[in-house]
Structures are given as C-alpha cells and as structure tokens.
C-alpha cells in the first residue's frame, strides 16, 4: 500500500528522528510513504478564526495533491495532523471556506475534502493492525514500562479529530503492547505540555511539564513516548528529575529491528 506523506517543517530539522524511524518502520511493515512534492509548512496551529482562508491554503495544497494521486494523506507530527485534518473538515463541511479557498486555488477540479487524512498511528491501528505489527516485532521491549503522552492535538476536538476517545484514549497503549512493552496509564497523559507558550513564558510550560512528569513517574513509568516535537521539547525542559522522552517511531524501529536503517537515512 502506498500513502502520500506530509512530513512537515520540524521533521526536516529538529525532529529528523521522528521521520527517519517512521520511514524505516513503514518499509519493514510493508507500506510506502511517498512524500508529496513541494509541501509547505502547515503553520503549526489551526487558524481558529472563521474568516481565515490564506492560512489554510498550504494544507489544502497538500490535501489536493494526495487526492490527485488517489492516496490517503499520512501525517506524523501531531500539529501537522491537527491542522490538516481540521482544514480538510472545513473543506468538506464549511461551504464558505470551501468556496473561498477554491477561488484562491484555481484547481482544474475544486477540492471538496475528498482526501482521507491518517496519522501514522492510525495507519498502524486501522490499516496494518496492531496484531500484525506484533507478528513483525523481532526485538520485543519486554519489561519496559512506557507512559504514552498524548497531549492535546491528536485528541481534541474529539468530534473532528476522531482519533480516539479524547478523555480515555487507548491507541498508544495498544501500540506499546504491540511492541512488547508494558503501558503505564497515568492521569496527565492528555493534559497540555504548554505548547507554544514555552517561547515567551518558559516557566509556565515548565510547571505544566513537571506535573506530567510527576504523574507518569508516580505511576511507575520508565520513559514517555510522544508523536509531537513540541511536546518532546517542552517535556525535556521540565525541571523535575525527569524521565527520558522518545518519539514513538524510535521504539517502533527498535522493536522491528530496523533502528540502524533509520539512523542511516
């Protein structure tokens, strides 16, 4: 199976690991991520104003390119996923935005929200299947206690993201079980890390990440995993005696025995 793939700005720079290990793992699992050409930054946050059009166009271009190839569009960064999925919902369901965005785009055929947007974790759950993933694991992470850090962007608003139950998600815990490790469920796993507040108000983000770290440690986690480069950055800047934080794709590549291939890319 071939998917269109949108890496996003940070996966080209500070979060290369997140990207490299995903590509190596996809190969090992038998699906292909075909990077779309000339993608542009999604903007990092979804423009909430109902009159915002220009700020949504980079997402529409990516979505339309996947549509023209007849492929679902796969994302990996939580922020890109959030933005692109919500813009797609606008293009499908909000007539005013659809009309005005298409007026800008001047495509040969208007984009109406046809593309299916999938996060890499959704591909693992819904297309590959966690049971199939489990069969491909060669280095199970037996005995490792892992806390899933979901954060906000993959889960909320639940009605639009349709990723998992926004208050009691299980997808990353199921992923952790599939790679042979033990999930640790802790109360702060879907609380905010502070997000973009850490640019100007570092203490606010630190306080929030301290709570997340303390919560995960209190429930016995050895490490945290995330899909978001900004969550990783904020969690790594917490002040408490902290747990290591990894991208979920790094542990996936390790379990599939392709970590070296990921590093070489």
């Amino acid at each position: 199976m071939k998917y269109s793939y949108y890496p996003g700005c940070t996966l080209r720079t500070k979060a290369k690991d997140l990207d490299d290990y995903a590509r190596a793992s996809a190969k090992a699992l038998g699906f292909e991520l075909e990077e779309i050409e000339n993608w542009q930054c999604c903007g990092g946050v979804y423009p909430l104003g109902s009159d915002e059009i220009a700020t949504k166009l980079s997402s529409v271009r990516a979505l339309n390119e996947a549509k023209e190839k007849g492929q679902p569009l796969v994302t990996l960064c939580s922020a890109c996923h959030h933005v692109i999925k919500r813009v797609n919902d606008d293009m499908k369901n909000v007539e005013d935005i659809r009309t005005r965005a298409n007026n800008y785009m001047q495509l040969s055929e208007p984009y109406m929200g046809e593309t299916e947007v999938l996060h890499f974790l959704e591909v693992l759950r819904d297309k590959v299947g966690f049971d199939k993933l489990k069969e491909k694991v060669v280095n199970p992470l037996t005995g490792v206690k892992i806390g899933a850090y979901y954060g906000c962007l993959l889960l909320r608003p639940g009605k639009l993201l349709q990723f998992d139950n926004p208050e009691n998600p299980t997808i990353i815990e199921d992923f952790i079980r599939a790679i042979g490790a033990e999930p640790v469920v802790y109360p702060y796993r879907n609380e905010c890390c502070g997000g973009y507040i850490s640019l100007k108000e570092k203490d606010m983000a630190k306080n929030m990440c301290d709570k997340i770290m303390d919560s995960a440690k209190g429930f016995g986690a050895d490490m945290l995993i995330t899909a978001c480069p900004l969550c990783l950055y904020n969690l790594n800047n917490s002040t408490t005696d902290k747990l290591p934080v990894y991208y979920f794709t790094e542990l996936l590549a390790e379990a599939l025995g392709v970590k070296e291939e990921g590093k070489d890319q």
Partner: protein
Amino acid sequence: MSSEKNCAQQIKEISGADPLKCMKCGKCSASCPSFNEMDIKPHQFVSYVANGDIEALVNSKSLYKCLSCFACLERCPRDVKPAKLIDAARQLVVRQRGKDYLTADEIPELLDEGLPQQLLVSAFRRYRR
C-alpha cells in the same frame, strides 16, 4: 478601536461561537491548564463577550495565556467554544497595525539548541498578523 458593541459582534463573527448558549457551569475554567495565569478566566470571558464588555477583554493578559489545548472546547456541555472566543478577541487586537504580541526582533534571544521550528511558526501564527 470601534465601539464595544461592534467589537463584540466581530468577536462573535470571527469565532462563530454564541456566548448566550453558556449556562455558567464553569467546566471550561475547571479544565483550563492556564487558569491560574489568567486575569479573566475562561467562563468569565464568555460572559464578557455576551455583555459586550470588550475593553477589559482586549486588555486582558488572558489573551496570551490560552494554549489552544481545546480542553474547554472539548468539555463544554453547551458547545460554546470558549477557546474560539479567546482567539477571536486576540485576533481583534493583533490584526491592528503595531499590535503584534511577538516580533521577529525578539526571536534571536528566545532561541536555544533544541527549539523546534514548530514552536516558532505556532507562536507567530497565534501572536501576530
């Protein structure tokens, strides 16, 4: 800035939210991770828009404390969307000339080794036009 009534209307239009649906249960403020940092709390924010009390809102530091985590929006039993109202009030400010909350000149001293690009683009999009 034009009259407060006009501004309240603009906030409602930009946000697409209806503050009159609020039944004042306070779940938004109870869910907000920035609650302690805000001078006007999320549930109060909704009433301020409903009452057209915009001058206080646009001068509130709460505009820059919202994290867009969507906890309030997710948990509101009346689908009022406080996060969208706060964003619209912030837009009303930063769309004016010279009212950016973040300027490019500030960036160099805010950078550090691990800082992801995602943080810069997100902050730029929320804090300025």
